[in-house]
């Protein structure tokens, strides 16, 4: 009798009568607890995190009254999300055979499909969050994203490198949109002429680059969103087969 089975005996003692279990049943019980925990993470925690990213990725807060603005993703965001999912499979972050298989029950295949759909929607919304809304910055940043993702498609990745690369890409996108472009945006003013005199450079950038005027809280919200997306990717298992 080894140490593990002794521990289990002591903890399962009821009414002073110890329950005798052999070593194999302990191992089975331990594995079961682990798989239930993994199921909680995979089927509850990961979708919750990714759906929260889906919700927050398109939200902006108006400059004046912090009112919500829900922005639907541009078509290019869907294309980027598809490329990203292909990258996840190529980088072995996700083993498709471990998510959809005849060996798994119908219920598990269905639950897995739900998780992967949330991954797709979250990926779409993370690009919606980081791509500038319009004008020249949209095309420049969009092209940079496309170029990076397209090149990544032809590289040999492992999951860790892929996550690092993606983290870098998202961090850069965040920096450009919510630090660089946000600081170039002039505050809204009712008097156009007065605004020109007060903030000539910012007003020029805002007009030329067609920058939207959002509350600075939007940046904090999207910082949280990007962090949550990376957390979701970190938690997502490579395979759901036990």
């Amino acid at each position: 009798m080894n140490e593990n089975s002794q521990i289990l005996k002591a903890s399962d003692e009821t009414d002073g009568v110890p329950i005798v279990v052999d070593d194999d049943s302990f191992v089975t019980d331990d594995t079961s607890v682990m798989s239930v925990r993994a199921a909680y993470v995979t089927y509850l925690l990961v979708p919750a995190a990714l759906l929260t990213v889906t919700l927050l990725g398109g939200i902006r807060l108006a400059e004046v009254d912090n009112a919500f603005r829900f922005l639907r993703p541009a078509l290019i965001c869907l294309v980027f999300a598809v490329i990203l999912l292909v990258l996840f499979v190529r980088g072995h972050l996700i083993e498709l055979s471990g998510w959809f298989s005849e060996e798994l029950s119908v219920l598990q295949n269905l639950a897995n499909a739900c998780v992967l759909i949330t991954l797709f929607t979250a990926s779409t919304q993370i690009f919606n969050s980081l791509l500038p809304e319009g004008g020249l910055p949209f095309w420049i940043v969009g092209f940079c994203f496309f170029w990076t993702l397209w090149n990544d498609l032809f590289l040999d990745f492992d999951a860790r490198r892929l996550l690092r690369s993606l983290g870098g890409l998202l961090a850069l996108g965040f920096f450009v949109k919510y630090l660089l472009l946000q600081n170039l945006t002039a505050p809204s003013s009712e008097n156009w002429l007065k605004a020109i005199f007060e903030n000539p450079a910012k007003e020029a950038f805002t007009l030329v680059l067609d920058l939207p005027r959002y509350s600075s809280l939007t940046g904090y919200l999207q910082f949280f969103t990007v962090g949550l997306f990376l957390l979701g990717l970190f938690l997502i298992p490579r395979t759901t087969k036990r």
Partner: protein
Amino acid sequence: MNERYIQALGIVLTAAYFGAIVFLYWTAPRTLAEVSTKSQVAIGTYKIEQAKFDDGLRAFRAENYVVARDSFDRADPERRDANTQFYIAYSYYRQGWGRISNDGQLFLRGIEAVDRVTALNRDFKSEDPDLKMPTPAELRNELEEGTKITGDDFNPLKLIRERK
């Protein structure tokens, strides 16, 4: 909990959360209070705020149409009540009506409001005896006529017509 139950629960919760997100993006509420109102509309429990409607009606009868519209707008923020929208349209008509000339801008807004009434209830008929044009069709016709310039506008007898 059994792993299968967790998977089933995951599917249900994911579908519910996803549905809520689609609803939010579809309705695009501006504030948290609007989320509640739009949810009421979606589940069919939306009602106008009667106290504000009564305030609006008092202002309408006192011919204070700007205040009346403000109260009506607050009473029916989702613009789902045909009666309230009809009063809004009528307030544009009464405010914009003039013995010599009408205010075209107000009449155009009135047409927009009366179109909302028709969209909400095609067979709407007001029960207020004070309103001489109880149906959206009559009101719309009057508003449309008011925005046009025709030969009748130069008829001197127009000066003795009454506001409806």
